[in-house]
């Protein structure tokens, strides 16, 4: 699930092992959890007038080749024409606090809003590389889409030193692919945010009904397409036709377990109702027993 829309960037990776034969610790991809993304957006909304962009620390876990960003917190910083300052004490204190709740999340890099990478970015990157040593720090640049001309999107970078004598203020930011990742079980929570007037108090049946309506609409769309192909109005796409046959051909097989399953479910419903009424009666009896 790529985060930024069509990008023509080719992700070049120098995968040659280091001279001493140890595997390279350079991450080749990055995944980000929605809650980290939303924290960054919230931080951006709460910036002061003087702040041109906001930065913060990314927490998460890493495997050999990928980095999983799970959380983010804001860090104070100030940028002027002459200098950049990051509140390192704040960063350390906040990291210690976060580590107490989620000890498996470590510092993996930093984020900033806006997409411009400048000398200060290189300096901050240098600082975070010290924090994440021996691994490399990743940088996530989040474009909020509020500045003119630029679309919203998220880009991830790693850095390599540049020049014969590497200096902290010089580095090349190499883009790496970046994806949104969350657990399937959290999906319904995001659905809640996507639908403008969904109330979290709806019952399971309401959700089921809306999902079924969705499916029905899609079937109608497919049906309309197939009929227009049959009438000869549209030239049919063979790939679509085969795909439809694959999907719709897998009919549900008749299984004898249906009746048994139905009886079980009915029994469970009955039992649940019985338990509930007994509980209610018991609560009422507790109120009257002394009378």
């Amino acid at each position, binding site marked *: 699930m790529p985060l930024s829309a069509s990008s023509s960037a080719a992700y070049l990776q120098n995968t040659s092992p280091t001279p001493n034969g140890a595997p390279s610790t350079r991450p080749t991809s990055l995944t980000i959890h929605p809650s980290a993304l939303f924290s960054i957006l919230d931080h951006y909304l709460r910036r002061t007038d003087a702040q041109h962009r906001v930065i913060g620390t990314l927490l998460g876990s890493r495997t050999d080749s990928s980095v999983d960003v799970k959380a983010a917190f804001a860090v104070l910083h100030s940028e002027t024409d002459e200098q950049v300052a990051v509140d390192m004490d704040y960063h350390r204190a906040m990291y210690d606090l976060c580590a107490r709740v989620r000890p498996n999340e470590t510092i993996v890099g930093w984020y900033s809003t806006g997409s411009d990478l400048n000398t200060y970015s290189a300096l901050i990157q240098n600082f975070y590389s010290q924090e994440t040593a021996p691994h490399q720090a990743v940088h996530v640049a989040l474009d909020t889409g509020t500045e003119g001309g630029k679309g919203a*999107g998220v880009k991830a970078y790693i850095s390599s030193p540049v020049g014969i004598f590497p200096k902290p203020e010089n580095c090349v930011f190499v883009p790496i692919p970046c994806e949104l990742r969350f657990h399937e079980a959290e999906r319904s*929570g995001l659905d809640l945010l996507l639908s403008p007037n969904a109330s979290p108090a709806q019952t399971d049946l309401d959700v089921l009904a809306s999902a079924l309506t969705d499916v029905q609409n899609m079937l109608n769309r497919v049906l309309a397409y197939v009929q227009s192909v049959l009438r000869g109005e549209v030239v049919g796409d063979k790939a679509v036709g085969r795909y439809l046959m694959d999907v719709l051909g897998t009919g549900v097989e008749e299984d004898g377990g249906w009746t048994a399953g139905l009886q079980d479910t009915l029994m469970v419903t009955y039992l649940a109702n019985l338990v509930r009424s007994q509980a209610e009666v018991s609560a009422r009896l507790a109120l009257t027993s002394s009378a």
Partner: protein
Amino acid sequence: MAAPSMAAALAASLPAPQAAPTPAAPTYEAIPASMSKAIDIEAEIPLTCVQLDGMVITKILKHSREASSTTAHGLLLGLDLDGILEVSNSFALPSHTNDDDEKATKSIGRYQASMLRSLKEVQGDDNVVGFYQATSLGAFFNQTLIDTQAIHQDRLRHGGVVIVHDISQTARGNASFRAFKLTPSFMDAYRRANFSTAGLVSHRLTFSSILEEIPLRVRTNALLNSYLNMLATPSTSSFSGARPGEATTSALSPSYSVLDIGNTGLTKNLEQVAEAIDNYRTEEGNVAYLSRQIAREKLRAETYVAKRKEENARRVSQGLNPLPEEDVSRLFRIPPEPSRLESMLLLGQVDAYAKSLESNAGTGLVKMYGAKASSGV
């Protein structure tokens, strides 16, 4: 159980009720007429609605799923405005370990204080408005939750709310967030620690009248909204020969986990119901045992008094001095009447498990009929 310790930690670190930052409070300018109704310094406008920010929802989701058991809890931060409690941020609290209660209490308090201070530094909200608790299968009644909320209700402006998030229901495709606060009658009984049978009767308490639900709605700010829509908009693949299933991709592809036909959770749910009923029976047995003991002690005391009276009457008739009337309560220790709170909470759990079982089975039934109709059997 570290219930009281956590409650004490909360109490230690919470600000006094008046400390809630109301924007208009420190200035001496007149409140604009348009806002005069909305801003209430004295917290007089009752809460009618809780508004959860999108970020808070994702944070709670993540924390609840990652915490192994249903112990995930954290604090909610925000402000109230014109009867709407706006929850704009949250942070997780470390789950308490039982090794050293005194130490744990203090460290949780310190943790909270420093976290609030840190959030304030980056212009975050630092006003505690309640806490959240993860639960599974709908059964969230427990002593810890009640204790914590009771402390909040005494100390926080507007009493605070507890947001209950049901993991199992969310996994089934219906994200469940509900906001509660304790009812006034329960608070009254709680303050007097009066959960004897008479106390329950006079406060008319059953498990369904412990908590009252507050309507909850979800808000996404404009920036978040535009971002979400960007994520959900499908983008067409640049390859012309892509399979139809992969031709369009989006960061948030639609999911139909709701339509899963398997009744996977039912067995677990049934077990939970049975377990809750067992717990309830044990507790009822304890209460009954204590009640019998009280009755026995009372009977012994009464027979003793009656015997003494009879003897005195006899002695008077014989012309002797009556024996002194001794203090019965010193001779017989009548145990205090058992608290019915625990059994009430357990009964609430039984009800909640059964309720979730019922709704789970109900949807399962609909899906089964749906599948049967579509397969044309």
